[in-house]
């Protein structure tokens, strides 16, 4: 199985503050890889480096085979991204957002139209197709944002705290979408601070104070730390943290 994401001693410093401290890991194709940690642990910073949004201070990394230092534009062609704020345009309609991002990632008008129709059907969004994103409820926005992020069939999709502020039922539905994407060959890299979501991932890494303190499948982690659930695992690790939230 090939590695779709690799990181070796990746570090990011802001002045004297080291946000990400020499992290190393690999993610295999088709994996759902969870990037866990408390707020302020450095998850988002690490992810931004992988996406080409932030230049690493030191260390190396590759995404989809491209170097994140020197080949960021090539990296970007092959990834999808969904941020905490959902980053859809509130003042554009649902289909207009899809068309925009499809076009940006190189799809042509015809493909976009066909896929849009399919997507609207699958999500049951036929009614909402022509609505402005601003008028959608949060759960809908979330699903739409994710669908847009994988619309162009990227190799990897990066999700930054995608389920913030949504009720558990919607979160469950969201994760079903993630499973489906992984089944279709898209590698999913997701950061979250909801420990129960960790159970849904193939493997999970836990960051504390900028370092990866644990990296394994949820099953193994629970065994190693004699914990009943991921929350306990995390509590045991987080106690070591020196960064006050």
């Amino acid at each position, binding site marked *: 199985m090939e590695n779709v994401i690799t990181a070796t001693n990746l570090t990011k410093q802001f002045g004297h503050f080291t946000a990400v401290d020499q992290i190393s890991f690999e993610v295999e194709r088709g994996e759902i890889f969870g990037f866990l940690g408390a707020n302020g642990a450095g998850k988002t910073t690490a992810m931004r480096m992988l996406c080409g949004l932030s230049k690493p201070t030191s260390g190396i990394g590759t995404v989809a085979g491209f170097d994140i230092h020197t080949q960021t534009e090539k990296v970007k062609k092959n990834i999808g991204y969904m941020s905490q704020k959902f980053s859809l345009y509130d003042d554009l309609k649902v289909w207009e957002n899809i068309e925009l991002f499809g076009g940006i990632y*190189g799809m042509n008008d015809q493909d976009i139209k066909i896929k849009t129709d399919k997507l609207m059907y699958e999500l049951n969004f036929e009614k909402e197709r022509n609505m402005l994103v601003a008028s959608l409820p949060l759960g809908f926005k979330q699903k739409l944002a994710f669908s847009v992020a994988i619309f162009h069939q990227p190799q990897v999709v990066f999700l930054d705290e995608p389920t913030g502020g949504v009720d558990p039922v919607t979160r469950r539905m969201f994760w079903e979408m993630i499973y489906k994407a992984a089944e279709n060959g898209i590698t999913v890299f997701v950061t979250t601070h909801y420990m129960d979501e960790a159970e849904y991932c193939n493997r999970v890494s836990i960051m504390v104070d900028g370092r990866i303190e644990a990296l394994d499948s949820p099953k193994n982690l629970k065994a190693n730390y004699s914990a009943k659930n991921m929350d306990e695992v995390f509590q045991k690790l987080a106690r070591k943290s020196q960064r006050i939230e």
Partner: protein
Amino acid sequence: MLKYLLRKEFRQIKRNAFLPRLIFAFPLMVLLVFPWAASYEIKNLNISIVDNDQSSFSKALTQKIISSNYFRLTDYSVSYSAALKSIEAQKSDIILQIPANFEKNIINAQGAKVMLSANAVNGMKGGIAMTYLVSIINEFNASLIKDLMPLSKSTTNISTIQIDQQYRFNQNLNYRVFMVPALMVMILSLLCGFLPAVSIVFEKELGTIEQMNVSPVPKVLFILAKLIPFWVIGLIVINIGFVVAWAVYGLVPAGHFYTIYFFTIIYILTVSGLGLIISNFAQSLQQAMFIIFFFMLVFIMLSGLYTPIDSMPEWAKWVAAFNPLKYFMEVMRAVYLKGSDILQLWKQLLALIAFSIFFNIIAVISYRKSS
């Protein structure tokens, strides 16, 4: 890729409640109100005459002043203090004091003096009031002399140099004609310099810019997509300007339209590049707007809109040399009123092209997709 970005931008502008109205209302408001308000023409000067002689000469002088159309008589009295009160109350601009024995002294060939006191708070107004009054008094004096010196010495040929005045390009000395092309420059600067920059900083604040930064969209394309709609808007606005100038002021360019379009395009490029540079460095929307506003204010003041660049001290002229508005303003006025063509305006063309290249290169370089 550009196609999709442009579609997005145009859709967003259309849907914005504020923007389309602003784009059309603002130029109209400026062009319809400004030229009437912004005038340095001095009219309706008010005079208080203190006549302590009450003779036929003094009354004749008074009559001449009133019938001159430059002055309106506010009060005619024998008290200087009353006249001064008029000045304090802003009812009068200048006082003429005719002393007692005015007529007697003149007839007795002893010459006479009169006192002129002008309110110089507005120095220019005071100066002009003074000038007009002095010239009326001189005319009155000249006709008096003719009457009083009928045969005596007038055989000595007093030769005169006759001055014929001709005003070109603006025969009626219409100040509005001077202002309208300049105002179009100001409108374009505000719309095309301010708005695209605000659009980018706004996306920064919203966070949607992150989605763009993480996508393969090259920064040049992103910037272009932000600018192009406003270029289009700029061209639309200038056409509105043409129509208003013609319909309301009867003003038609003496030169060619294509000259104006040509320079307009270059200018819009310049001014939007400048706005972009500011937006790249601003940390928040409020800050960006404020900085741009401040720059625009200074640029407008130093552009020759209100006061001529020629009248400025050397150091100010130097600063103005770096002001793109100055050049475009010169172009607009020259083409509209004098009929100058592109070749005659080569200096301005060069300056604007240089600015445009410089600003836009810096704008693109300073835009960072990653930090």
